[in-house]
């Protein structure tokens, strides 16, 4: 579970990127995070992951405050950033083992996980090459694998489907469903509304740092008395702001 209470963040004290955001992301469900470009999605996710400091408010992950007990909180989640261009001069294998060492994953356990993950994402043949030789999609996959290697209970994914081929995208979606079904937390941002519509149990829509709507797909339709697609609702909702 992720809990945000009255979180604020502004850049240079003028532009409010996150405005008094209160949000509870429950266990056992997939929660989608939607909003137009520059709405504050990535900033919010970075605050949850401890990459950015909030100006005020509190963030807890499975009950642990990220500001007060950062290490304890960080070990709970796996975070996939929006840009997978990192550790380019490490081999895929070296990167995975580096992450495993950071998260203190035992040797025997990590071997099985690496095998499992690389099979699911069809990355077995690439592991011995440097990440800079990977395509965008492959980089995305290796970052996701590095995050899943310690089997975190909370997944925080920033645009995880970007650049993935249909097969890998399908695999990831199935994994997200499986993770939520096992009673754990999945929180991800996306621009692809069809994906959100089909995959999410709940969606949170934000614009200009403010939460516009938070609820299940049924609730959203009821609330807007609409039988239209999420796309139509989303466009109307963010247009009127």
């Amino acid at each position: 579970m992720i809990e945000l209470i009255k979180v604020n963040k502004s850049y240079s004290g003028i532009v409010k990127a996150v405005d008094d955001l209160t949000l509870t992301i429950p266990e056992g469900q997939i929660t989608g995070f939607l909003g137009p470009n520059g709405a504050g999605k990535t900033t919010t996710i970075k605050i949850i992951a401890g990459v950015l400091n909030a100006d005020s408010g509190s963030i807890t992950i499975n009950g642990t405050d990220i500001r007060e007990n950062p290490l304890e909180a960080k070990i709970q989640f796996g975070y996939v950033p929006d840009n997978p261009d990192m550790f380019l001069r490490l081999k895929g294998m070296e990167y995975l083992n580096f992450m495993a060492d950071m998260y203190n994953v035992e040797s025997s356990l990590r071997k099985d996980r690496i095998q499992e993950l690389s099979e699911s994402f069809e990355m077995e043949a690439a592991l011995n090459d440097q990440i800079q030789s990977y395509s965008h999609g492959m980089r995305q996959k290796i970052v996701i694998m590095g995050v899943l290697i310690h089997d975190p209970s909370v997944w925080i994914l920033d645009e995880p489907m970007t650049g993935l081929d249909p097969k890998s995208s399908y695999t990831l979606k199935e994994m997200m469903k499986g993770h939520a079904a096992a009673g754990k937390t999945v929180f991800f941002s996306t621009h692809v509304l069809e994906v959100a519509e089909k995959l999410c149990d709940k969606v949170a829509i934000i614009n200009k740092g403010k939460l516009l709507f938070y609820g299940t797909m049924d609730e959203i339709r009821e609330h807007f008395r609409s039988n239209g697609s999420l796309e139509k609702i989303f466009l109307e909702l963010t247009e009127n702001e």
Partner: protein
Amino acid sequence: MSRYLILTVIMLKNSNMLNLRSGKFGNNSIKGVLISLLIFAAFLPMMLGIGNIVMTGYAALSEIQQEGLILGMGFSISSLTIFFFGIFYVMSIFYFSKDIESLLPLPLKPSEILAAKFTVVLLYEYLTEAVFLAPILIGFGIASKTGLLYYLYSTLLFLVLPVLPLVYASVISMLIMGFTNLAKNKDRFRIVGGIIAMFLAIGLNVVITRLTGSSMNALELQKLLEQGNNSYVGIMSGIFFSNRFAVMALLNSETLKGFVNLTLFIFICALFVMLFLSFGEGIYYKGVVGMSETSAKRRKLSVAELGRYGMQKSALKAYTIKELKLLFRTPVYFMNCVLMNFILPVFIILPFLVQPEEMKELQGLTVFLKDGRGSAIALAVTFGISVFVTSTNGIAASAISREGTNIFVCKYLPVSYKTQIMAKVLSSMSMGMVGTLSMLMAAAIFISVPAYLMLITVFISIFGIAFSALAGILIDLNFPKLIWDNEQKAVKQNFNVVLNMLVSAAVAGILIFTIIALHFTLWMTLLTLVLVFGILDLLLYSILSRVGVRLFERIEV
């Protein structure tokens, strides 16, 4: 022409020449300005010193009418320095800069990109020149009480002088990069190319020194000097042949002869720029297109290999290894931070290769080392060098800066900032140790150093290396330079490295001076170094554990 100007302006805007962060934090730009002032203040004594030497030298040399020698040497040394730095700048700005990938698809001629990049490098070189050549020109001007025209000519020459050495550096780099770009494993070949370029620069240095040294014997030289009339300037030759026109222009700034020489000098430089651009038009893209390609084998790992890779390590160890791997595999980091530690002995051996007679004098050193006071001085000096070397390789002082915008990764890893800082310190210390050991080994080849002295030196240098590394990362935590578009900016164009060098040089210098001045014995030296640096290291460690961690926490991109 206008496209060239637009490109140059864009590149300069993009390059953020000062060590300021992108304005998100107001107080940091104040810190940045302060640090620039501090560094200027640190160079000021050196600049004043140079100016002073020039003025004294002028008084002596003008009596035999050879004052032109000062300008000649000033221009020669400046040209060589510019050439040497130029190779690094050219490599990074022409080839390793990230803007290349966005420039290549645009409808630009190779020569237009080259001209803009050449201008950017030229501007960087003015900074190098300002420290060294400017005081010479000003000192000479004051001493010779010359007119306004001299200063006008000086300014022009100051601006044009780097052109020729930079053309040389560019052409050499373009040839090497054109060749290494054919290779499959580009990173490795680029590293090899860089090493070749560096040795070429050093080798050329040796050859020039030897040529000018042996081209005439002492008697001839004396005759020439006695002729007066600045005759010595006439024999200035070598690859920077045009410098003699520059000297003549300044010496005769009041007459037509000066003007003719100035015109000639500028004309030669312009000619070389034209040659360089037309040469580059043909060869530049050969080196730069496909730069970002990397080789990949796509070979599946066996289960056994999976197991071998997957041995669990502590976070500190894994992090330190990661740091070292990135240092060794990224060409720019390898060239600037790693290679220096290995080739340090070359610089020590070099003077003896240039002048073999001096080898004999080394025998005296062996005797010197047997003496208690001699070994104390040797210990202190070696210690000082190891402190300095560790700061020169810049690994600690750029450890945070090198993360660049990917610094966010450090933030979400479940590893304390203290562990991350210490892993970076350890990676810096291990390379500092390599530098110290390779230096000691080089020394051991030429002189017989007693084994106990060797051991003591290795032991004690750990304290000094730790000091440099701890101080370096503390500086970098204060002023991280995270916004850069090529890796060179994180390590070479980073004032933190310079600041770390100044601090380390000052601390080591004071201590060595004290030890020599107070006639310390070997054991007193050892004790002093252990005590002073042990305390300093502990102090820095505890500052890093608290203040350093807080600074790390606050860094945001």
